[in-house]
């Protein structure tokens, strides 16, 4: 990397960015004007609402009261303590029609008296759907409490006792030992991280899009590439420019926030917080500034990586939307009481910055944590920049039509036949599938039992198939719909059987190491299986998953990955995603090897029907083992309990031999046919 080149590129980027009115608007106008406006607006709104609710007179009525005048007197006696104001409704006809009046909105609430257990019993009638009615009912409750307290005291006095001593035999109060600074810091620490993180993101987003997708769209990228510049130099310059704007935006946001803070303190609007020693916040502010710098770099790197694949501004905006959501959710981490900054959370991007700022404003300084947070952010940034330097040189991104695209957004009639889904399509489909499994599936299973499972699998199939149809996917290629070879079938069964044994061993090992894992969701399914006919169990737990999940994973996912990655990467990724899809850690560990094997077989044989069969056999075996566990352990007692060393060795040996034999058979046959 040549510093001079990077610097001149950086100067060019900055000039380009700063001459863009949109950036300036994002950077300066929003923080400097919007925040005060929001603050002032919300304060005005709150105070005017408070005023309106207390200064307003509410119309209340009384129904069926033994002594209405006495109640009105009591209301008048206590209402001033609360600053309440009432107008009492008296029906003209003398007959109680309060219910009618309340429903028509002429009165806000009313009191009904009855007798219960030989004492007066009151009901407050109101409309929960009306704000005024709610407020009025609350006011009536307050007054009734006063009346109740008063009556209690009278009773106690009648008994010849001291009311205060009887009602409050003990007394208590709070003593807040935190300083005013700590109190203020707590509040600031809750709000600042979120605002800072969003403002940095907003600052980084636009220049990042402009510097990547913008260049592509305006056609200046090719010009840039005619210059003797290395890709990494280009990325570093773009990264520096984006970071500068992000830091600038954050800085202006910080200043704007600080000014608001000073204003509120000096105006005394925060009441108890007046007299705060602002100087005590200086260390916190310094650390916050460091956070701003590192996080601006991190955010710039993330935004640039998200946009680098985009061909146009619009596409870049699509790609950055998930980034924005993640950042905003992460930014709220500081507000969650359950989370605390520990060695693990200190490594989670976004969350760590939010929590560090929160902690710092609570005056919890721990140098090691600050260091971990800042350094991990720097490390992520460095990795992202280096990866981008490599990606940027990849010509597909620059000149070819990128395989990352969301074809759903295109008009179907414009699409060519025989498409291969891109990464964008894949992400969308699998996001939909995860939603189906997480929400739809759970609800369906709760409502319809095993039929819900069937419906869930059908949905998985339908969503994948519909999307594939819409984007005119080359079905035969992507879904590997070729007729299977018989030998490959047999080879596949052998390999699967071997892998099944090995996976059982692995499961035993994992459960032995982490006993907590086995208690996961297994119970749900077994409870569903109770009292169900056998055929339904097989249909819902073996046949449907075999067809539908294979279609989605070994079909759509593997088929798309094959065109994007090297075969090994495509196979392993598919296996891992397939395992992750089961959403349980134990299952992830055990399913991943199976998933990889199945993906390998499909890649090798181009036929999804083989793995549909294997998937079916696999689930069926698990189902039968689960169902007939008792009988099985009776007949084969060695299955019960822990495996001893010989057992493990036998399992291991049998597994490896079967797996090896299966794979060899699959390969041997293939070679022969090629030779012939």
């Amino acid at each position, binding site marked *: 990397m040549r510093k001079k*080149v990077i610097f001149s590129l950086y100067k060019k980027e900055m000039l380009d960015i700063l001459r863009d009115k949109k950036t300036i608007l994002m950077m300066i106008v929003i923080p400097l004007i919007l925040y005060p406006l929001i603050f002032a607006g919300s304060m005005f709104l709150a105070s005017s609402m408070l005023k309106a609710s207390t200064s307003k007179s509410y119309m209340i009525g009384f129904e069926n009261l033994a002594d209405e005048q006495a109640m009105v007197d009591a209301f008048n006696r206590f209402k001033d303590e609360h600053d309440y104001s009432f107008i009492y409704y008296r029906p003209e006809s003398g007959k109680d029609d309060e219910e009618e009046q309340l429903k028509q909105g002429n009165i806000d609430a009313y009191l009904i008296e009855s007798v219960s257990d030989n004492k007066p019993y009151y009901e407050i009638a109101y409309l929960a759907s009306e704000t005024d009615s709610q407020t009025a009912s609350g006011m009536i409750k307050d007054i009734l409490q006063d009346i109740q307290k008063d009556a209690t005291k009278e009773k106690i006095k009648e008994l010849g006792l001291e009311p205060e001593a009887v009602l409050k035999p003990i007394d208590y109060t709070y003593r807040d030992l935190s300083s005013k600074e700590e109190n203020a810091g707590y509040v600031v620490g809750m709000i600042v991280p979120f605002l800072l993180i969003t403002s940095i993101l907003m600052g980084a987003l636009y220049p990042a899009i402009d510097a990547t997708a913008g260049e592509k769209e305006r056609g200046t990228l*090719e*010009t840039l590439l*005619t210059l*003797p*510049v290395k890709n990494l130099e280009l990325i570093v310059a773009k990264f520096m420019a984006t970071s500068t704007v992000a830091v600038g935006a954050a800085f202006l946001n910080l200043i704007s926030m600080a000014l608001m803070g000073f204003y509120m303190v000096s105006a005394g609007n925060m009441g108890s917080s007046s007299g705060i020693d602002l100087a005590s916040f200086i260390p916190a502010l310094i650390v916050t500034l460091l956070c701003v710098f590192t996080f601006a770099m991190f955010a710039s790197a993330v935004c640039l990586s998200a946009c680098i694949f985009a061909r146009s501004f619009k596409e870049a905006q699509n790609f950055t939307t998930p980034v924005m959501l993640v950042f905003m959710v992460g930014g709220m981490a500081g507000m969650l009481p359950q989370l605390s900054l520990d060695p693990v959370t200190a490594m989670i991007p976004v969350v760590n910055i939010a929590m560090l700022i929160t902690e710092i404003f609570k005056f919890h300084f721990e140098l090691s944590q600050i260091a971990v947070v800042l350094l991990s952010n720097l490390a992520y940034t460095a990795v992202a920049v280096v990866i981008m330097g490599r990606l940027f040189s990849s010509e597909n991104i620059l000149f070819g039509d990128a395989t990352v695209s969301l074809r759903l957004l295109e008009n179907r009639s414009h699409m060519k036949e*025989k498409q291969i889904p891109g990464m964008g399509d894949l992400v969308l489909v699998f996001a939909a599938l995860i939603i189906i499994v997480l929400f739809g599936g759970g609800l369906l299973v709760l409502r319809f039992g095993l039929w819900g499972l069937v419906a869930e699998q059908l949905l998985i199939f339908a969503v994948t198939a519909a999307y594939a149809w819409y984007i005119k996917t*080359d079905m035969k290629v992507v879904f590997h719909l*070729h007729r299977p070879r018989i030998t490959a079938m047999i080879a596949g069964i052998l390999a699967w059987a071997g892998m099944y044994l090995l996976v059982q061993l692995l499961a035993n090992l994992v459960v032995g190491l982490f006993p907590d894992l086995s208690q996961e969701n297994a119970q749900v399914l077994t409870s569903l299986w109770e009292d169900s006919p056998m055929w339904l169990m097989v249909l819902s737990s073996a046949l449907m998953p075999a067809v539908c999940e294979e279609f989605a994973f070994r079909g759509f996912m593997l088929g798309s990955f094959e065109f994007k990655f090297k075969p090994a990467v495509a196979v392993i990724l598919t296996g891992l995603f397939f395992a992750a899809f089961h959403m349980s850690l134990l299952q992830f560990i055990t399913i991943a090897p199976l998933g990889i094997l199945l993906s390998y077989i499909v890649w090798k044989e181009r036929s999804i029907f083989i793995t549909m069969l294997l998937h079916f056999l696999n689930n069926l075996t698990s189902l039968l083992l689960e169902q007939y566990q008792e009988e099985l352990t009776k007949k084969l007692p060695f299955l019960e309990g822990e495996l001893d060393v010989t057992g493990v060795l036998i399992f291991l040996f049998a597994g490896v031999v079967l797996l090896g034999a299966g794979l060899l058979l699959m390969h041997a046959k293939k070679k022969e046919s090629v030779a012939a």
Partner: protein
Amino acid sequence: MRIEARALCKSFTRLVNDKDKKSRKEEFFAVDHVDIDAHEGEILGVLGPNGAGKTTLLRMLGNLLEPGEGFVHIIDDKGERITDPIRIKSCIGYLSGNTRLYGRLSAREMMRTISEIYGMDEESAAARIDQIVEVLKMQDFVDNRIERLSTGQTQRANIARCLVHSPGIYIFDEPTLGLDILSSESIVNFMKSEKDAGRTVLYSTHYMEEAQYLCDRVIMMYKGRIIANASPDELMEQTKTDNLRETFRAIIDSGAKSAESEGEDA
């Protein structure tokens, strides 16, 4: 300075169906083992139908794309062979319909940035820029933002961009596409004058009259390969045609035929 490229290949993957109906990825050569020699004081035209691989070839020659196979070297006036991609780029001025300019910068700012990237010192850069402005008659608009310039002015600014580092070799990919007569004339004249000054010019176009008038030699590409390589006059003689447009058609037709028969043989 001359350019020497040997066995240049660039392949992309696409889908094909086998005879046994199994679809698979197949490598498809956009440029298929092409040799190029372009000499000092020569305008070499690269002709061919759409999709023949002209742009891919020129991008590889300009080092915008990395060759899949083969190499591009530059041999400078002292006979030294330059192989480093960054140094090769420093010898080339590259202009195509896709090389657009930064709209928010002025032509002068752009040229200054480029001179910095080429590592020129400030004084000589300023002198060079003034010289370019005078030659291309850009005095009126050199300090305006490029987005406010007319098409012809923008085109001159784009030429100015290629001149900053005084390259020995020019690569122009359809530089006159979509321009009016006056604007394209300025480019044609520019290429002619640079050739006369002893520079090497590589140039692709669809305008046969222009190529016939300008080029000392043309290569014709079809499906990634070179199917003809001679001066326009020689080619016209070979095909017994009297203008390059018909020559082009004749050569492409025979190229298509030979490609077909080749396919049958295989």
